[in-house]
């Protein structure tokens, strides 16, 4: 890989990330959002792994001859980003699992997994909650009560 | 070109052709069962052919054994998987397509 692509190779990852980000924002379906979040994260993984590439490099595993002796057959690609991304992949699948568990619960509680419908229900809940907790200018109430008392 | 490389190339090419035809079948066939038929058959064969092809160019005996083992397991597992899928589809109530039958 002789720099034919130069930094342009990095741009693919931006594209992937942005497809994912678009999905997260634009799609009202929660499952879609969760999947898109995964795509978004994969984009970042691609960036990290691209970072690890060295011209003419090979997998960063020393060749074992026998019984622990090793032979250098480099140049090797950089293992550090690989390690970081292993961790990040695990994290992303964990997040996906929790997200899906939440979505199942949401389906149970709301009967739908479309964000706009849920949001509408939430807004209604919130309004009801607000009104339930409202104290119409605190003290006016007391006045009303007293007026009532007077009339009685 | 050494003889083993020739054999390898032929096997790989064969595998590719079969695999391609399978993919074509998946696109063209009318219903689920037919498509799975195309995919299942060709995949098993193509993969086994390719693995065998690779055996001929691998210098390391251990790796050769591993490759053959993979091919062997694939031969058993891939059809079983296809079977399980069709079985599940059948249990789910999916009717096979027949000419002039209900869509």
């Amino acid at each position: 890989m002789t720099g034919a692509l130069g930094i342009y190779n990095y741009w693919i990852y931006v594209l992937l990330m942005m497809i994912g980000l678009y999905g997260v924002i634009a799609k009202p379906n929660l499952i879609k959002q969760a999947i898109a979040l995964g795509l978004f994260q994969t984009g970042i993984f691609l960036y990290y792994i691209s970072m690890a590439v060295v011209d003419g490099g090979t997998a960063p595993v020393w060749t074992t001859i026998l019984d622990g002796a090793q032979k250098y057959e480099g140049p090797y690609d950089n293992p550090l980003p690989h390690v970081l991304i292993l961790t990040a992949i695990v994290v992303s699948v964990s997040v996906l699992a929790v997200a899906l568990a939440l979505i199942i619960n949401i389906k149970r509680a709301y009967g739908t997994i479309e964000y706009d419908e849920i949001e509408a229900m939430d807004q209604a809940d919130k309004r009801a909650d607000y009104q339930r907790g409202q104290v119409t200018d605190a003290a006016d109430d007391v006045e009303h009560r007293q007026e009532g008392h007077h009339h009685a | 070109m050494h003889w083993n490389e020739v054999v390898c190339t032929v096997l790989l090419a064969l595998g590719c052709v079969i695999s391609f035809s399978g993919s074509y079948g998946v696109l063209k066939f009318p219903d689920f069962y037919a498509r799975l038929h195309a995919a299942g058959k060709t995949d098993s064969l193509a993969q086994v052919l390719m693995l065998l092809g690779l055996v001929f160019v691998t210098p390391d005996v251990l790796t050769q054994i591993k490759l053959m083992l993979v091919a062997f397991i694939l031969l058993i597992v891939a059809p079983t998987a296809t079977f399980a899928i069709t079985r599940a589809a059948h249990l789910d109530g999916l009717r096979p397509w027949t000419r002039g039958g209900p869509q």
Partner: protein
Amino acid sequence: MLDAFEIVPNLPVLVVTVPLIGGVLTIVMGRGKGPWAWATLITGLVFYFTVLLMQQVLAAKTGTISYELGNWPRQWGIEYRVDALNAFILLTVAGVGFVTTLYAQKSVEKEIPQDRHNFFYAVWILAICGLLGITVTGDAFNVYVLLEISSLTVYALIAMGKDMNRQALTASLRYLILGSVGASFILLGIGYLMMVTGTLNMEDMHDRLAALPDAVHNRTVLVAFAFLLVGLGMKMALFPLHMWLPKAYTYAPSAVSALLSATATKVGIYMAFRFLFTIFGVGFSFVAMPANVVLSVAACTGILVTGVTAVRQTNLKRMLAYSSVGQLGYIVAGFSLANVNGVAGSVVHIFNHAVMKGGMFMAAGAIMYRLGRCDLRAVRGLGKRMPLTMAAFVAGGLGLVGFPLTAGFISKWYLVQGALEAPHMWPVAAVVLVGSLLAVAYTWRVVEAAYFQEPEGDSALVTEAPLSMVLPMWILIGASVYFGVSATFTGDISMRAAKSLLGGAP
């Protein structure tokens, strides 16, 4: 074999691994009070360790303790690095974590199904563990991993409010999505930085950045800076990236709200400290880059907007949640000043706000425990029915307002001083003061309802919350008062922290 083991040199790592192991072991603690007792033990132990650690840091000649995990040199392995700043934050997080665990027992008993208390407390301890880990580490990627632990646990904890109100679920999912995007931005920022520096150790990164010929015009560094800022902003709920916070705090189980408000966003801010001051350095973040303008404008707008929003809420927890965003604004506004008083105010407010808001959320939780709701209508007349709870709420509220002799005043004192010292930053001082007036407005609605109105319905019959709730509540509120009357300890520490942050990497 144990004779070779000493606690003190291993404190930095014990602070994190004890809750890790303890958290995992919680799942075998059976049902009933077992998990809670275990969680209390573990968090108490961690709190003790943080106190010891604080002593160590204060005694250390350089003011810094370094711990190299696996004995690998810090530039290669992962380093734990404790200075006055993170020792203080550790103390705050562990202390509030401990007290909140004490408090959690009754509230969790009521709000979480009995058969999963062991899992709940496991997640609870792991959340604290993650937050402590972020605070103690000196490695940029380790921050990300621990951030994900704390986030994941927090998503689950918030969602546990689902049995009280289904909105907990949507709140949690929304936080999950925004939080993951934020964390991804942080990961990306770390990646960009790694690309130009070739290292992950924070201090090493700082040195490499400083050695870069033209870091200020390096586009990679600039973008890294921007994305880190946005990612951190999301994690610490900086206005206008705070959208997830109010709902999450409102519908989470009461104990969780108390824990989160006092710790989660604080640790987000701590990360901002580390990235802006330790990695990029003051010169880069605040002189070359307009971070001070961006942050202070965001913070000030946040203080005002969320203050006004808080005044309009009827649900106490929601009100407190908005107030939290505003209070975070103070902290951000403080360090955006980039002078000693401002940063010290910011650091001290992290602690002060943690104890005050933690206590207030506990009070709201106690009301929730007794009445099943905590809105303005419910608190009417509670001043007589639940005197201790309401007094705690009011005392905390006075702290938010910043009345003298409360902890909030100390923060305000430093912040206003810092704002007046910094050139052209006096509007920040004005906003800080106006913000405290808004705090009067929303606190006072509760005061009026609780003390000058007659109770109705259930409110007329309730009694004071159980002692196991009132006591922790008052520990926190008491701390907020104590550290308002005698803030030499907190003031000293935050001054030290501020000086070391501003003097470049310690």
